[in-house]
């Protein structure tokens, strides 16, 4: 036992001291902070420019009202959209051609063409170099619609004051129902699920690669035989996997502290600089998600870590290893590809089956837990299957490792590996 502890200590100290670990650990929270802060900033900072929009109004009635309605303000209080009317000329087509040139010359960001029959169903046009600013197009569309609808209604003889009431838009709030009641949700669930699953995916691959490289280094530097003159191959393998797990926990602990601090204080910090951001609700994450996150990280780590250790013992160098690692990594990539499907229909039978498959479970079951807490029996079943598979993999990897770690030369064939497993 004392020998394994010494191996664990060695692995831990050697890795925690590397530049890669220190940079990764610092970069983690930075990325995490960026992940939380950037979307908020993008929402409130990027639209900080006045835009000049031309309007050709063939009805010559709509422009004044449009100018009134499109009153979105910039941070400094000035108008976001500066509308400029172009009186219709006799040759409209020529005029529009002219305006196209102005858009291309950047004198105008865009122009709006309002046909004479707009109230009777004619189509208005929005012409710009960039037509993917859905926020702006939405604003214009809403303003135009309400003006035209108001015109139609008042044409029917309705009281202009009543029209205002009738036109009041319906607001739609998204709420999430859970066992503990109904909560307001502003899209945070999606972001957090995606975020947690991504961390799990990255760290399992990252630490798996560290195990792989560690085993290969021991083997190719030939130090392994000296070490094995003191302890069993299984002890060495176990010590390595546990030591690197300890590194992982250290990193998670550091990230956890940053994460809690970030979710607690980031809003107040951001709001100080951008008061408008107070409208953005910080998503709250139930604590059971964190518990399952840690459980599935541990299980996923040990499942994939043992496989990586087994592979490391079979090969002579990292190049050879990458070929063998590819299919294993695919087992981690597939659930990432299936994420969108599972998020959309977390309780479909396909999602249930996929999340029970041990190689997918760490990612997909965690994702289902984040999106919509599945029945406990399903979670327990996936954890149990995962543990059984991990034990089986430890058994297989240990058998391969014991022989492979001392074998040099040609990479073994599948038949040879089966033979190794039968050696006394």
């Amino acid at each position, binding site marked *: 036992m004392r*020998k394994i502890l010494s191996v664990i200590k060695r692995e831990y100290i050697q890795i925690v001291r590397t530049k890669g670990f220190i940079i990764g650990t610092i970069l983690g929270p930075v990325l995490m902070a960026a992940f939380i802060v950037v979307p908020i900033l993008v929402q409130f900072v990027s639209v900080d420019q006045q835009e000049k929009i031309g309007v050709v109004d063939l009805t010559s009635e709509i422009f004044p009202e449009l100018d009134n309605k499109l009153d979105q303000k910039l941070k400094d209080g000035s108008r976001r959209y500066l509308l400029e009317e172009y009186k219709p000329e006799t040759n409209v087509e020529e005029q529009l051609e002219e305006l196209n040139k102005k858009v291309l010359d950047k004198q105008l960001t865009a122009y709006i063409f309002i046909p004479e029959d707009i109230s009777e169903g004619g189509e208005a046009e929005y012409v710009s170099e960039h037509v993917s600013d859905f926020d702006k197009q939405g604003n214009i569309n809403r303003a135009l619609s309400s003006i035209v609808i108001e015109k139609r209604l008042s044409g029917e003889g309705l009281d202009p004051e009543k029209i205002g009431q009738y036109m009041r838009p319906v607001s739609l709030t998204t709420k999430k129902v859970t066992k503990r009641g109904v909560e307001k949700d502003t899209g945070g669930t999606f972001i957090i699920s995606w975020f947690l699953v991504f961390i799990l995916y990255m760290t399992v691959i990252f630490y798996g690669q560290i195990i792989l490289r560690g085993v290969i280094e021991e083997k190719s*530097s*030939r*130090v*392994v035989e*000296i070490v094995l*003159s003191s302890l069993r191959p299984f002890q060495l393998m176990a010590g390595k996997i546990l030591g690197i797990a300890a590194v992982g926990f250290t990193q998670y602990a550091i990230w956890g502290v940053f994460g809690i601090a970030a979710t607690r204080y980031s809003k107040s910090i951001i709001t100080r600089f951008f008061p408008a951001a107070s409208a953005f609700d910080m998503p709250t994450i139930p604590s059971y998600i964190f518990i399952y996150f840690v459980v599935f990280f541990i299980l996923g780590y040990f499942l994939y870590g043992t496989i990586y250790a087994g592979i490391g013992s079979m090969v002579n160098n990292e190049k050879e290893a990458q070929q063998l690692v590819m299919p294993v990594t695919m087992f981690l990539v597939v659930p990432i590809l299936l994420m969108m499907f599972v998020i959309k229909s977390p309780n479909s039978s396909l999602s249930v089956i996929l999340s029970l498959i041990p190689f997918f479970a760490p990612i997909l079951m965690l994702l289902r837990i984040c999106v919509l807490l599945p029945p406990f029996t399903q979670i327990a079943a996936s954890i149990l299957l995962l543990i059984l598979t991990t034990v089986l993999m430890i058994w297989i990897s240990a058998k391969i490792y014991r022989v492979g770690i001392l074998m040099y030369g040609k990479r073994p064939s599948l038949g040879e590996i089966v033979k190794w497993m039968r050696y*006394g």
Partner: protein
Amino acid sequence: MNALEVENITKSFGDFYAVKNLSFKIPEGTIYSLLGPNGAGKTTTIRMVMNIIIPDDGQIKILDQKMDEGMKSRIGYLPEERGLYPRMKVGEQLLFLAEQKGLHGQDARKRIDNWLERFDLTDWKFKKTEELSRGMQQKIQFITTVIHQPDLIILDEPFSGLDPVNTKLLKDIMLEMKRQGNTIIFSTHRMEQVEMISDNICLINKAEKVLEGNLNWIKQQYGKNTIVLDYVGDASFIKDIPEIEKTDDYGKFMEIKLKEQTDPQDLLKRLVDKIRVNKFEVREPSLNAIFIDKVGEKNAQDTVSH
């Protein structure tokens, strides 16, 4: 008591026998050498003694006990394919490997410092291992083998790659260990070293034992019909003399095996007319000659060329 008893061990990998029915005994406090051409089964034998490879058949007893994991800390082992953790600092490396042998804390640290001083490596204690020269790394490896004062020291090809200075250092330490009552077993195919320090030898060829016993006794068995000749001149005629069974010519030096019932005196008479004889010694055959005799010319050439 025997430090090591190997009884009828066999190990095969598929159809290939690495070791077949091998038995030998090593008395405590002696130096024992395991000889044989490359691929003869020396390393496999040593790995079985170390419990790294499990024999298919047979028994191994170390210090009168069955080999088990607990025994590993009473053994010092220097593998043939040796290495160290390249990115660990020398001091940490030694401490880690000492801990694996059951040493701890102050005791381990003190021993490390003593050995580093003895090998003149104190300045390198905080350097990364990969910065050391090959010779220095070999010294570190040797320290890890003996730091826990093992009763039995197993060295697989300990002299390979060592320069003359380090070869002497290693030889001196081996003899010192022997004087302290420790037992040393080492494998090699370099006969000079074996002849100088071994008490007993075991010659293995193609997985099987060919010859075993006390070195002096073995040489006596071969009789005093070998002549070592130190000469100047053209000695090519010697091999055609009918009374001579075999020659091994080095240009200035020749080992000659006479046929039975031949008087060395007659040979000397023939030589003095044709070449200048600086030395003419009648003695037992060299281990090298015995090795070649037993293993066969072709096989031995493969070995010597290494």
